[in-house]
């Protein structure tokens, strides 16, 4: 037995050395060879940008495809696959000059044919894109040479550039469109990373596109999206070093993250407008005084702090960081006395109960709902809460407007028209009808002069701020947690897509 001990010891020591030495001497070098690992909060339904409206899809496809135009970190539209563009004939013709020397991941060159084929696929009813209507005014697409595209519109359309800069306008290769390629599970684009594999509900692997048109980018060998739905598990993953980047919508775990020296957290303003929506087609909410009373009863700062992890209060239907935003928060300050008086004036009986429907998968909205309930209780409005699952919320509340009150966040868009379209008509879930607002919104769509457009939208936002079909609560923050050695990670403003092109490992 005693003879046996020595070889075992020796093997153990050698083994330990074998493990330790490389990890000590090559630890820096070894780390940089690995892809950046980011948590994704759910499984995208498809990776075909034309077949979904899901943010999860565009968060991934941003790295695989490019668009003609893209928003810079400030939200200005800058060239991407198009080097430049001109408006002609008062905005009815747009000419794009395309970038030369760009290739798709399969090696074929990018030309004007690809742009034309992509836009035609988008307009095709069979594609079934939820964003298809945004392209309906494009009458004809001309490709005079491989590097020029001319779009002929039936009437000027101001939001079109923003549409072309959004994830769903990603350019697909023409020859694969003709071949009926399945972009949903095997995406091919011109983007900074090539698609490698996708294990549903588990992970998506992307590898570096070595011939990307932006010189010297990307800087990391790949991106690994890990699909982790539970936020607390994402936080633990970041703390233990199994993840490099996480994107959080609330501040609950902030103290733990800030305590850890290997992790840094960046606070970014989202483009969300958090609201309590009111069904204005139902009494007593059809009475403006009741809606005003409800607005006076809410302490917005408190709701933002407790339910959404902090934010900036707003007074109208636009997020606080948007260039079109106008501050109307002083119209309905917190004033419970006035709220009570307005309710009495409107003759709301004290035994009147309103039903608040909450989407139970969004924990922050459920928390906010309970806070609203108590704030409204204090001015004498009884609210009963009912939790529903997400699909029920979409069909009953958002589509059929079968509710009194609900709590939700409206995501941002690059162009104000996408947020405001249909408001003032009975097509929205608040059923707020206001012909003047509706006609202003329609008119602003076709005006190309930015100052003129802004004036129209300011008027719309003022009407909404006064008529309060919602309680406009505020724009919340999001928190991006990264390991200390990761730099250059960005989230595209409004679109919320993840940009890894400048990510570096130090």
């Amino acid at each position: 037995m005693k003879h046996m001990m020595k070889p075992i010891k020796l093997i153990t020591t050698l083994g330990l050395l074998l493990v330790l030495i490389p990890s000590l001497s090559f630890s820096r070098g070894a780390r940089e060879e690995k892809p950046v690992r980011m948590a994704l909060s759910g499984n995208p339904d498809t990776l075909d940008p034309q077949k979904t409206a899901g943010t999860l899809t565009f968060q991934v496809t941003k790295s695989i495809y490019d668009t003609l135009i893209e928003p810079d970190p400030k939200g200005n539209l800058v060239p991407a696959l198009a080097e430049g563009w001109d408006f002609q004939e008062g905005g009815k013709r747009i000419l794009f000059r395309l970038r030369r020397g760009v290739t798709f991941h399969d090696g074929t060159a990018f030309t004007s044919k690809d742009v034309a084929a992509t836009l035609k696929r988008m307009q095709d009813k069979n594609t079934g894109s939820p964003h298809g209507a945004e392209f309906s005014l494009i009458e004809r697409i001309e490709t005079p040479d491989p590097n020029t595209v001319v779009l002929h519109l039936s009437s000027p359309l101001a939001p079109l550039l923003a549409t072309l800069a959004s994830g769903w306008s990603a350019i697909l290769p023409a020859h694969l469109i003709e071949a009926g390629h399945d972009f949903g599970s095997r995406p091919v684009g011109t983007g900074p990373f090539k698609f490698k594999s996708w294990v549903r509900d588990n992970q998506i692997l992307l590898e570096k596109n070595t011939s990307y048109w932006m010189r010297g980018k990307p800087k990391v060998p790949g991106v690994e999206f890990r699909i982790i739905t539970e936020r607390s598990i994402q936080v633990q993953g970041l703390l233990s070093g199994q993840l490099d980047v996480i994107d959080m919508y609330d501040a609950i775990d902030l103290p733990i993250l800030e305590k850890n020296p290997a992790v840094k957290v960046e606070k970014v303003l989202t483009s969300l407008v958090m609201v309590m929506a009111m069904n204005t087609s139902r009494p007593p909410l059809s009475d403006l005084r009741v809606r005003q009373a409800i607005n006076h009863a809410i302490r917005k700062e408190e709701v933002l702090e407790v339910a959404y992890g902090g934010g900036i209060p707003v007074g109208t239907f636009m997020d606080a960081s948007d260039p079109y935003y106008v501050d109307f928060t002083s119209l309905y300050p917190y004033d419970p006395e006035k709220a009570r008086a307005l309710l009495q004036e409107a003759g709301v009986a004290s035994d009147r109960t309103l039903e608040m429907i909450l989407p139970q998968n969004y924990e922050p909205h459920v928390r906010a709902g309970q806070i609203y309930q108590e704030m409204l209780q204090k001015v004498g409005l009884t609210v009963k809460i009912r939790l529903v699952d997400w699909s029920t919320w979409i069909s009953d509340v958002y589509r059929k407007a079968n509710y009194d009150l609900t709590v939700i966040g409206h995501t941002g868009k690059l162009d104000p028209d996408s947020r405001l379209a249909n408001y003032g008509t009975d097509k929205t879930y608040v059923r707020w009808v206001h012909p003047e607002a509706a006609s202003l919104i329609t008119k602003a769509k076709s005006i190309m002069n930015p100052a003129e457009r802004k004036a129209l939208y300011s008027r719309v936002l003022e009407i909404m701020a006064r008529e309060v079909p919602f309680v406009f609560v505020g724009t919340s923050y999001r928190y991006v947690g990264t390991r200390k050695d990761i730099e250059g990670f960005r989230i595209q403003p409004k679109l919320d897509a993840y940009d890894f092109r400048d990510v570096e490992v130090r």
Partner: protein
Amino acid sequence: MRIRIRRKRQKIQKLFLFTSTVYLCFLLFAAFGSSYLAPHSPTIQDLNHRLLPPLTEGRILGTDDLGRDIWSRIVYGTRPLLIIGTISVGIALAGGLLMGILAGAMGGIVDSFIMLLMDGILSFPTVLLAITVVSVLGYGLGQVTVALGIVFIPVFARLVRAETKSRLTEGYVESSRALGTSFPMILLRHVLPNMMPDIIAQSTVTFALVVVIEASLSFLGLGTQPPEPSWGLMLKESRNFLYQAPWMAIFPGVALAATVFSFNYLGDYLSEQLNPIR
């Protein structure tokens, strides 16, 4: 040696029994006298005192994410718990008795049909069936109560049917029938009293199951609606604060586990004690 071990075991058993009974009596008291035990309202928020750890500022078990007192919420949570438990078991028992006696006493096609139905219900996993019934009836406490009652009918029906069948063939029933006693009278006098021990034991165990499933349904958002206190709902709300405020999860969890343990233990004990044959 053996005797000593057995004595020690009996001692532990007695201790468990005592603790379970005391705990259940306490639950009963908490349900009826919530306002005496709870120093705060279970639903009123105090946003300046959020996520307070236990034993601070007069909060025995701390506060939750909206500043509500956890101890008060647990105490008030006993009310829906016991009400749902009692009514669901009541529904299950009533339904089970009716079905079981019908099947056991009439036999033939009626028996086959009823038992086919019961087996059909039993073949679904309990929680899944409860979710299905709730989604048909709608969300809320009343609906959950009815759903859980329906789900547990087969358990009682099978028990009652078996008991009825075996009792009806016994000598004293035969002789009683020979003496001219009516059939309903036989059921009432001979059959029912004899199956009481089993029914009591089964009810206690079912009560524990109902408590767990109610908590699961509330956790899934189908049961008690916020801000009403329910242990399952409290566990659901605690999920996001596990690292920050573990007390939000621990206390309702412990209360739930202790309740289920107590009912189970009492059920086992009762079935052992009340049934001389075993």
